[in-house]
């Protein structure tokens, strides 16, 4: 019992067997994961996979059909106010009162959190790059500006846990970089835990400590970026493109004692830089046309597509 409490204290967010049914369909199905202090937790999955649904339940916008959410060790369903006070969130598109200025919107939300300080709002506006336009009406904001304001409102009350659902939506390249740097600083320096979802896997790869892949409401993979990188190597280090991939694969396996994997017109295999010229010579010797030879640079995208398959459109 005591041990369990200790474990709870370590994770800022813990989700246990979370299930949400819409009608007879499970939008999410017995989801489990936890996020530690200062951890950036990436949530990836196809459209309709259940990312937003999970985040809505965590932020109290939707009620779980079954399962529990623990924030800072407390059960969300019976300590709503205490739990949510720790959470800053932006779920899907952030929406504001169009007749108020950005500043007035932030002031309103800050007042609701009971922590309105003008200096704090200015500081946050600075962080998200809105300073110049803060006193304009939100109805005149661009998509990206609203997105920045959305991130700003999630930070107002210094939350321990940030839930950001596709925060990079509509941001320009600069904005994305700024926000990314800013989030990393927030996590590493202030110890804020961040749960973030995005379809731009390159961002996730460079931002997150942990990646959780969700598919059709079920979690299919939860790994740290390091683990992912390591496991990637099982497919090999190099590939060649050729018109005779099967023959080439056979030769590589037989002569060089390494596993080769065929993918389309590519042959993937593990080797060293030293050995590579020998392989090329051997293949040429066997009259196999080689179009290109290259190192394999695995990206999260490859892993993702590998795990959930490419035909996974909604």
């Amino acid at each position, binding site marked *: 019992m005591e041990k369990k409490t200790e474990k709870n204290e370590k994770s800022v967010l813990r989700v246990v067997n979370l299930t949400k049914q819409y009608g007879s369909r499970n939008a999410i199905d017995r989801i489990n994961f936890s996020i530690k202090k200062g951890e950036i937790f990436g949530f990836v999955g196809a459209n309709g996979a259940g990312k937003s649904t999970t985040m*809505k339940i965590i*932020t*109290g*916008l*939707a*009620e779980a059909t079954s399962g529990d959410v623990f924030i800072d060790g407390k059960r969300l369903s019976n300590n*709503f*106010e*205490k739990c*949510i*006070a720790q*959470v800053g*969130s932006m*779920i*899907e*598109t*952030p*929406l*504001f*009162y*169009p*007749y*108020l200025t950005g500043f*007035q919107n932030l002031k*309103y*939300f800050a*007042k*609701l*959190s*009971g922590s309105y300080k003008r200096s704090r709002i200015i500081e946050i506006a600075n962080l998200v790059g809105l300073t110049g336009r803060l006193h304009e009406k939100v109805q005149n904001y661009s998509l990206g500006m609203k997105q920045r304001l959305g991130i700003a*409102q999630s930070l107002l009350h210094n939350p321990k846990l940030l839930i950001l659902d596709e925060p990079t939506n509509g941001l320009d390249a600069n904005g994305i970089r700024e926000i990314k740097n800013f989030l990393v600083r927030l996590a590493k320096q202030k110890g804020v835990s961040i749960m973030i979802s995005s379809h731009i896997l390159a961002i996730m790869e460079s931002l997150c400590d942990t990646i959780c892949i969700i598919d059709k409401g079920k979690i299919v993979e939860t790994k740290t970026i390091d683990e992912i990188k390591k496991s990637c190597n099982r497919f090999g280090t190099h590939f060649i493109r050729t018109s005779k991939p099967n023959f080439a694969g056979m030769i590589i396996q037989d002569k060089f004692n390494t596993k080769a994997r065929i993918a389309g017109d590519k042959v993937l295999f593990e080797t060293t830089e030293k050995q590579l010229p020998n392989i090329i010579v051997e293949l040429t010797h066997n009259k196999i046309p080689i179009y290109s030879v290259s190192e394999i640079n695995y990206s999260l995208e490859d892993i993702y597509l590998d795990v959930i398959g490419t035909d996974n459109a909604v």
Partner: protein
Amino acid sequence: MKIFRLANAELGKLLHRPAIYIMTAFLALALVITAFTFNPQSKSDNLTNFGTPTGSVSEAFAIFNSSTTATDSKHQLETALNSVYQDIQAFSTSESEHQNLLDSAKSVNALLTTGNANSLPEILYAFINSPTTTNRTALNNVLEATNESIRNQALRVYNYCAGLSHLNNIDYYATTSEINEIETVFLNLASAIPVNIETLSNEQIVETSENLRTSFNLSPTISKIEGFKKITIPSETITKITTDYYDNIKYQEGSDTLLTNLFEKIENFAHINGASTEKADKTELNKLITEYKNATYIAISLMQNSFNLEKAGDYSNAELKKYIGFSNYNLYNINEQITLNQHLLDKEMFHGEYRTNLNFGVLSGAEPSAYDFAFYAVQILGIIIAIFCMFFAVSITSGEFQNGTIKMVATRPYTRRKLISGKHLACYQFMGIFLLFVSIASLAIGIAMNGFTFTSHILVFNADTVLTLPDFVVFLIYLASLALNIIFYISIAFLLSTIFRSSTFALFATFLIYFFGVLFNAIASASSWLIYTPFAHLDLFKYLGNASASNGFLAINITTGANFVVSTLVLLGIIFAVQTATKIIFNKRDIA
């Protein structure tokens, strides 16, 4: 408290919306228009106006004392008092219309049935057995007599029905449908007999007679008439009413009755100041005459109302509604009038210098004062405020759902219950601010227009208790009652907004219910089932007199057989139930 924080933030946002300034401007404009339309009947309008600008006091007195045609002359007032007295006397002594109806129905029936030697069937058989000219003449005569009797009877029923609108003609409890049924039977019977019998052949006469004999049996009609419950008032009761409100009051030379004493005052004044042509003296004379007039009308009202109350017997309002002559009966109002007038009579308050809710907002009974305008203005502007409140409630609930901003609020540390309670509170504050604004502004305008006079406000609480309160207190009670009215509609607006989540739909549904309520006031006020609807209980102010807190635009003005306690409990119960439902729905449904 967190709910207050929510409400304050909600109102803070409001200050940035142009709509709030438009609303305020609209209210201010409406207030100005109200000020222009305010035209109270002043106390001087209540005074009698005997005498001419140049004439003397004794001349004015002479007109009052001897004219038989001048309005409010002694003679006219006596005639009015006497006629009510005579109505009541007539009721206790008159031959029962009910008995007449029954007797003649029986006599018609006797003409149509066998047994009686002169009845239609007997004469008919005589004619069939021996169709002589003598027998034919006898049959003709019987048919003619029957025809006439039936026509008379039909006419009697018809006249009776036509005269039903006058309550005093009624001496039994009958429904319209019963009377119509009886009337129809007699009219059918009358039309079954040809008008000119002489020209008919023997066969046609026989056929007509056979028809009448076999088709018409009046026994069911007779038993229906017999079944009517007779209105009875014990003669002691009649005597008491006429003694208290006629014998002890009417003018009678040399006696010590109320009107005699009041007349002597007038006479004395006219005797002492008879030669004066001063306006002030004539006004003083008219004041005394007005007291005489008011006393007369108080007596008339008491006599008539006590009599009416007795006629109602043990029936309730709802039961009475179905009987002819009782459709406009409202026992609550009758009791209220009696209570007020008895109080005025006991206290000998005939000067009319008090305010009462019974003619609230139109005629103060005293010199117009700031409060008269304030009551009048809030009565009208309260409706506008109510509509604004409904708009506001919908915009901060379904408006937020529609714009999606609700999710930005729902992810703050407030339980759903607090969130919706905060919105309710914000709406109450919104209402409070507007009511305060209108109250203060209308009092200020009222002071500017009519100045400020202190008059006692006489209220009849629950139809049986007289309260004399300062205007200010009555105004506060009035505002509280109006606020409860509005809170009911606010609660409905929140419930519908929570259910529909679409502003257009919620607003439409809320206004539908609101207009339904107003419509109810107009068309369903006489229905007995009204008491089972929330609308009958919305206005608590009516239990302090006949006036509605909103001029009938927010709540039903008429009393429905409930009383203050019942209506208060029902109203609070409904508001509580609606708000609980709102909280449950708001709590249960996913926000996004």
